[in-house]
C-alpha cells in the first residue's frame, strides 16, 4: 500500500480527533517534508484549533517559509499560557520553543530577552507566580490601540516614542494605550485582500488582549481595517478614524461600535486619489473637517492640540 503524501497526512491529522499533544507532535514531524501547497491547509487548520496545535502549526509555517509572521502570535500564546499557571505549562513551553525557532534565540536568551524590548518571559513568569499565589488572570478594564495605514508598518508615529503615540499616552493620559512588543501591526500592503486579512488578525489580536472597553485610533486604511474587524465578533467602544478613504464596502458593523468619529484634513491628495471619499454622512459617525491639510495631519499631535480634537472625540473618556 503506497504511503500517503505529506499533505494528505497533514489533512488527516488536522481532521482527526486525536489528543492535541499527538496532533501537535505529528505536525512538527511532518513540517520538514511538507511542500508549499500545505500552507493553505495549515492556515485553515489554525482557526479553532487547540492552542497547542496552533503553536505546532505556527512552528511548521516558519519551518516551511522562513517567515516570522507568527512571532507576535507566539508571544501572545506564551503570555496566555502563563496566565493559566500550571495548567498552561505545556503550552507555554511549546510556544517558547517555537518562538526560539523563529527568532533564532536560545532558551537562555529568551529568558534574558527584554533589554530594550518587552521581556515577554519575565512578564509571563510574573503573571504565573501571581497565579500560583491564587490571583486569577483578569480581563483588563481598558485598552486603546493605534493602527497605522498603508505602507506605514515601519513608521514611528504610532509606536512608543513616536509623536502620536506619546501624545495620546502622555498628554491625553491614556495609560491603557498598548505599546508592548506585540503591538498590533499589519502588512500595510495596498490592496483589499490585505486589509481584510488584517481585520481578521486584529480580531484575533483583540481576542488575545481581552478588555472590557476597547478604543481604536485608525489612520487611513488602518481605519478601514478597524471597521472591517467589527464584522467579526468584537466590539469597539470608540473608533476614531483619522483620514480614512471612506468606502461603503469597508463600513463597520455599527452595532459593534459605541461611538465613531471621522477626522479629515482640509486638503488630502491621498484620500482624493484613493477610491472613496472623505465623509460618511451617516448618523453613526461624528465628522470633523480640519483646518490643516495633508494626509498625515490627522495623526500629528500639533494638529490635535491646535484643533482641539480631544474635545471632539469626547476626551477625557470616563
Amino acid at each position: 500500500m503506497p504511503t500517503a503524501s505529506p499533505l494528505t497526512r497533514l489533512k488527516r491529522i488536522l481532521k482527526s480527533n486525536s489528543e492535541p499533544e499527538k496532533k501537535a507532535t505529528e505536525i512538527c514531524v511532518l513540517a520538514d517534508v511538507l511542500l508549499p501547497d500545505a500552507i493553505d491547509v495549515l492556515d485553515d487548520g489554525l482557526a479553532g484549533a487547540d492552542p497547542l496545535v496552533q503553536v505546532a502549526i505556527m512552528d511548521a509555517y516558519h519551518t516551511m517559509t522562513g517567515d516570522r509572521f507568527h512571532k507576535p502570535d507566539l508571544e501572545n500564546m506564551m503570555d496566555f499560557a502563563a496566565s493559566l499557571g500550571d495548567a498552561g505549562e505545556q503550552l507555554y513551553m511549546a510556544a517558547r520553543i517555537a518562538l526560539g525557532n523563529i527568532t533564532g534565540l536560545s532558551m537562555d536568551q529568551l529568558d534574558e530577552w527584554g533589554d530594550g524590548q518587552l521581556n515577554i518571559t519575565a512578564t509571563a513568569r510574573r503573571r504565573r507566580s501571581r497565579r500560583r499565589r491564587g490571583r486569577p488572570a483578569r480581563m483588563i478594564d481598558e485598552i486603546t490601540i493605534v493602527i497605522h495605514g498603508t505602507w506605514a508598518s515601519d513608521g514611528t508615529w504610532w509606536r512608543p516614542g513616536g509623536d502620536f503615540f506619546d501624545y495620546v499616552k502622555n498628554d491625553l493620559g491614556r495609560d491603557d494605550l498598548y505599546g508592548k512588543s506585540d503591538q498590533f501591526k499589519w502588512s500595510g500592503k495596498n490592496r483589499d485582500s490585505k486589509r481584510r486579512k488584517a481585520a481578521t488578525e486584529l480580531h484575533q489580536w483583540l481576542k488575545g488582549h481581552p478588555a472590557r472597553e476597547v478604543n481604536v485610533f485608525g489612520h487611513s486604511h488602518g481605519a478601514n481595517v478597524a471597521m472591517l474587524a467589527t464584522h467579526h465578533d468584537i466590539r469597539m467602544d470608540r473608533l476614531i478614524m483619522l483620514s480614512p478613504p471612506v468606502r461603503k464596502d469597508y463600513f463597520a458593523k455599527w452595532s459593534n461600535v459605541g461611538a465613531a468619529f471621522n477626522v479629515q484634513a482640509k486638503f488630502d491628495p491621498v484620500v482624493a486619489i484613493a477610491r472613496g471619499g472623505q465623509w460618511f454622512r451617516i448618523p453613526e459617525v461624528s465628522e470633523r473637517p480640519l483646518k490643516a491639510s495633508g494626509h498625515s495631519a490627522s495623526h500629528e499631535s500639533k494638529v490635535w492640540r491646535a484643533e482641539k480634537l480631544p474635545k471632539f472625540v469626547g476626551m477625557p473618556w470616563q
Partner: protein
Amino acid sequence: MGDERDWLDALANGIAEARAVAALQLAHVQSQEVVTALRGATTDASPQVALAAQFALWQSGEDVLDVAGMVQACVTADEALQQQIAMIAEQIGAPLVPRLAPLLNEAGTAAQVVLQLLDDIHDDTALACLRDWQPVDDDLLRARADVLADWHDE
C-alpha cells in the same frame, strides 16, 4: 464653469496639498486651458503637485507619467507622499507593470519600492515580472522570495 475656474486658481496658488487636490479635481476636464495648466504642473517643484497633475492627465488619457521619478521620490518621501504614490499605483494598476519592470534592476532601495508597487498591483503580469527578475543582492533576493511566498499563500 465656476468650479473649473476655482480649481484652476487653486492649482496656481496655495499650499502643495491644496494644489494637488485641485489638479485631481481637474482630471477629465478637456479644455485647453486646463490641460495646459495640468501639463505645466507635471514638473512642479512639489512632488505632490507634480504627481497629482500627472495622474490627472493620465485619467484624461494623456500619459505623461514619470514612473522612474515616482519611484525615486518614494525612496526619500515622507509617509504621506509615499501613500499618495501607493494610491496612484493602485488606481492605475496593470498598465504600470511594464513601466516598473525595467526599474527593478535599479540598485537598492529603489528596487525595493518597485517590488512593493508590483506586489500591490498583484496581477499575473506583475507576478511574471517578479518571477523573471534576477535580484542582484541578498536583501532583494529575500524580499522577492517573501513577496512570492506571500503571493502563493493568497
